[in-house]
């Protein structure tokens, strides 16, 4: 079957596992948030798993990514353990950022996850700088900058793509086009129908990808990453997808029809991929069930880890910053 073309069974299974882990983690986060257990605000990744999973599977462990306000999926896909992510969402000292950052600032530099970012498109320049650094250090690393259909209208998108393209830096710009920026359909704010058309402004490839098909997200990323690594410069990947949940947990979703959401849920990337995996005999029904079970167990362990962890000591409130004043 065509969807598995060009991918080893191992890779296909790995991507599947990543997607399921993200889905289970995020569903649990949603529950926890609604139960009032998590401070702050959370933006879940449910529905977009094929992107983080497919893209990150195309990367080496020391490659870089920069993420967005919707960053848990990227963090998991890039190799962060669930425990420190969950503990971060709880604001605990054992969190990835020792509870200082929270959901919008999850980061783990040791796995190349250079941070979720609360500023829309804020990560694109940072990914570009990481690629500049990799070029200079001759490390062969590639950087991926994730962003949304809303982020494509920020000036920083333009400045990053122009500079990266002019220097043929090893960056891949991955637009997760989930059709909405907060409550606003991209069609009302964005001057091009196909976001990949923006690549022409920088003389780089602009490729539209079915962002709900892990095969597509992975193979197109492999190509873009390969291109980047071999010195040919950046690409813009426009990955069409849809977020199943609200913009944040608690969003009343008045800006879209329930039927639209229902409709889009039909092309759930995980379900599609499970069908493909069983059709190709890569996974059995039982095997698939096990993956979910394991993800649930992993998530529960992360919740326990987080809940059993201490808050940061208030005496450390001014650690990690040079304090000018009091």
């Amino acid at each position, binding site marked *: 079957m065509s969807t598995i073309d060009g991918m080893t069974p191992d890779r296909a299974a790995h991507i599947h596992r990543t997607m399921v882990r993200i889905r289970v983690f995020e569903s649990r986060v949603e529950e926890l948030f609604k139960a009032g257990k998590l401070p*702050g605000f959370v933006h879940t990744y449910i529905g977009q798993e094929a992107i983080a999973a497919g893209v990150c599977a195309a990367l080496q462990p020391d490659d870089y990514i920069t993420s967005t306000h919707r960053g848990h999926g990227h963090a998991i896909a890039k190799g962060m353990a669930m425990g420190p992510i969950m503990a971060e969402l709880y604001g605990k000292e054992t969190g990835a950022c020792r509870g200082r950052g929270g959901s919008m600032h999850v980061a783990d530099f040791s796995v190349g996850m250079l941070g979720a970012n*609360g500023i829309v498109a804020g990560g694109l320049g940072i990914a570009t700088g990481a690629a500049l650094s990799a070029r200079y250090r001759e490390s062969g690393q590639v950087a991926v900058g994730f962003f949304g259909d809303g982020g494509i209208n920020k000036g920083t998108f333009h400045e990053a793509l122009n500079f990266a393209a002019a220097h043929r830096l090893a960056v891949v710009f991955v637009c997760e086009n989930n059709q909405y920026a907060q409550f606003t359909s991209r069609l*009302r704010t964005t001057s091009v129908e196909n976001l990949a058309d923006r690549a022409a402004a920088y003389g780089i490839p602009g490729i539209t990808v079915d962002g709900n098909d892990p095969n597509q997200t992975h193979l197109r990323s492999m190509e873009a990453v390969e291109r980047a690594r071999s010195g040919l410069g950046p690409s813009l990947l426009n990955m069409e997808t849809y977020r199943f949940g609200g913009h944040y947990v608690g969003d009343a979703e008045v800006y879209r029809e329930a039927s639209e959401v229902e409709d889009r849920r039909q092309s759930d990337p995980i379900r599609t991929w499970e069908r493909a995996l069983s059709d190709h005999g890569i996974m059995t029904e039982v095997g698939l069930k096990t993956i979910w079970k394991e993800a649930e167990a992993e998530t529960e362990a992360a919740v326990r880890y987080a809940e059993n962890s201490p808050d940061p000591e208030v005496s450390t*409130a001014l650690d990690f910053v040079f304090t000018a004043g009091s």
Partner: protein
Amino acid sequence: MDIESDAPTRRMSFGQATVDAMRLAMREDKRVIVLGEDISWGGNFGQFRGLLDEFGTQRVIDMPISEAIIMAASVGAAVTGLRPVASMSFVEFTLGAMDEIVNQAAKFRYMFGGQVSVPLVLRASDGVLRSSAGQHSSSLEGLFTHLPGLKVVAPSNPADAKGLLRAAIADNDPVVYLENKKITAKRGPVPVEDYRVALGSAAICRPGTDLTLVTYSVMTGHALSACRRLAEMGIEAEVIDLRSLVPLDLATVLRSVAKTGRLVVAHEAWTFGGFGAEVVATITSRAFDLLQAAPVRVGARSAPIPFSPALEEEVVPGPDQIVEAARKVMGLS
């Protein structure tokens, strides 16, 4: 258009009060338009709710996530006859439009020799609200107040929210209108009729004789709670809600300090280099001989605002810090 104290009022939230002001301004003056992200849906705190229905998409414009063009287009519209209200959502997003705010909006009238005004209002939500963390919790009035050409207001309650927004929209200069997230949902009585609170007029929210407590925005509420505890200790603080930082109602502060001889300035923004420093420095220079003790400042400690609720509370000031400062200025600690 000053409001009578027995005018009929209605209870509503700070956010609703701003909608009220917007609606009055937009009805009165066709030149008033609104630009911002997602505003047709009401804004993150309901500050724009209902405006689309009444005024339509020509006047209530959902902008792309492009803070620089929100501001620049507002400047362009302002100098060609409109009176735009630009929503920047969280105040940190203004950092993506600082050139437009500072180099363009603030400087045009002067740089162009007075041939044009830039009547626009920049609305932005500031302050700390339940662990919004480092990029969504700052109070940045200390930046805006330093920049000539900008006026800056920061109301503390729904009634002032309405009156100051009306005045800001009517003003011919760019006005930065800061609405603290923690109080946007807070309700209070709001006069039903139309009125304006003059920019540059502070309010004495609580008379007192022992010390002058200058504050604004969310800290006004904290100051009033602190005062209840201070009163129990026998300390009577006079609370001045500045409401408007630029223009600054120095006369009211000076009058109070002349009476009390002691000054505490409290804001949620970082203490170091914050607006409180300006108030302290000015009052010290103008009223040095009246001061019986060193003025004390209350503000956030010098760190990005942490996510952890425990740390957040440690960094961000509240009533406790005000009580402590008041005791210090009274020589009690």
